[in-house]
């Protein structure tokens, strides 16, 4: 047979060879099948370790207790006991090095997350004390009258930092 018939075959074989060579360089060594089989475990195994390395930002209220024991005890003996410190004060990160100071969310919206009145009888939300933000001292901050660490007592006027 004439050579022009064979030529496309040589080209095709050449492309396949090139792809196989490229594959060696491009596909990572740890790419393969894990115990989960071809359908669910066909992946780069070192990726699992990469996900484990993500920085933990929220460290839990117990970490706050080490230095702020009084504040910790105040809130844990109040009706707000179950609310973690970081929900209002933000994530601990590497405090006190970075950030040196944590912010405090004093917006009405923070309190309204739970205390907007929603009379949903079939949900625990219906049992929470709530207000209508349009009629209940609109515009003023909740912490002017309510102490978040001791919400049981009313009329605890606090100085509101700007």
């Amino acid at each position: 047979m004439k050579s022009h018939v064979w030529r496309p075959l040589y080209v095709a074989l050449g492309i396949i060879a090139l792809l196989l060579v490229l594959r060696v360089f491009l596909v990572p060594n740890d790419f393969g099948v894990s115990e989960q089989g071809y359908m669910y475990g066909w992946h780069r195994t070192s990726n699992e370790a990469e996900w484990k390395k993500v920085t933990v930002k929220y460290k839990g209220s117990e970490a706050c207790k080490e230095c702020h024991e009084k504040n910790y005890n105040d809130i844990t003996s109040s009706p707000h006991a179950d609310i973690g410190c970081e929900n209002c004060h933000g994530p601990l990160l590497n405090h006190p090095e970075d950030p040196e100071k944590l912010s405090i969310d004093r917006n009405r919206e923070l309190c309204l997350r739970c205390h907007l009145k929603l009379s949903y009888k079939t949900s625990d939300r219906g049992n929470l004390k709530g207000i209508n933000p349009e009629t209940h001292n609109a515009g003023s901050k909740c912490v002017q009258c309510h102490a978040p660490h001791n919400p049981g007592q009313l009329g605890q006027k606090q100085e509101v930092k700007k």
Partner: protein
Amino acid sequence: MNRREFCKKSLLIAGGLVVPLSALELFNPERLLAEKNDKSKTRWVFLVDTHKCVGCGFCVKACKTENEVPYDANVTRTWVERYVITNDGKAHIDSPKGARDGFQSAKLDQNHAGMEEIKEEDIAKAFFVPKLCNQCENPPCVQVCPVGATYKTNNGVVLVDRKWCIGCGYCIMGCPYSVRFFHPVYHVAEKCNFCYHRISQGMKTACVDACPFGARQIGNLKDPKDPVTKVIMNERVNVLKDEYGTKPQVFYIGLPREVK
């Protein structure tokens, strides 16, 4: 000792030696159940109590910060839906910004249709349902990935390889629960991974730690003593879209039929 007696006794001793110690151990049904399918000692599962959820959205806030999902982008790994079922049987659903700031109005946010007001006397039932990745036993999102960028770990969590993902979006379309989205920064598929960096060092997920009401719990289904396992095994729990055959591993207490 005669010959007959000698043979009898040696056979008895040899027979006794052959019986391994493990054969004398009584069957432990709990252990058998745990080891039935595979040898992995962990299978992470999630338990949500829809009665306890009040829709504060602290879970969404914590999740977005912990997992570096841009805070103001309207995408989130977990979200909370509000269901208000009126007396005529109609379900009114909303989830403004995925409830990142909770629900700041009694009116329901219907996007372009505006805010929907529902009179209190018309409400038959109303409740909140947190949603997150179901870490399915048969994850359809993993099956459709053409490059092997998403996979299931041996402890049941489905992960995405950000370096390997080509951003084709097949998995986003394939997930029946719509938990996947494009990460606005990395432009690859993104999803809840049960805070893999936290659970693998013995911590709880950020959303579980943030929830003040105990509506969210994470547990190991392979551990029969885990309180979450006990609830899943002994109480009436349900899963989302069971009929799809994906075997979702997020279990709900008090899941009504209106929730899809």
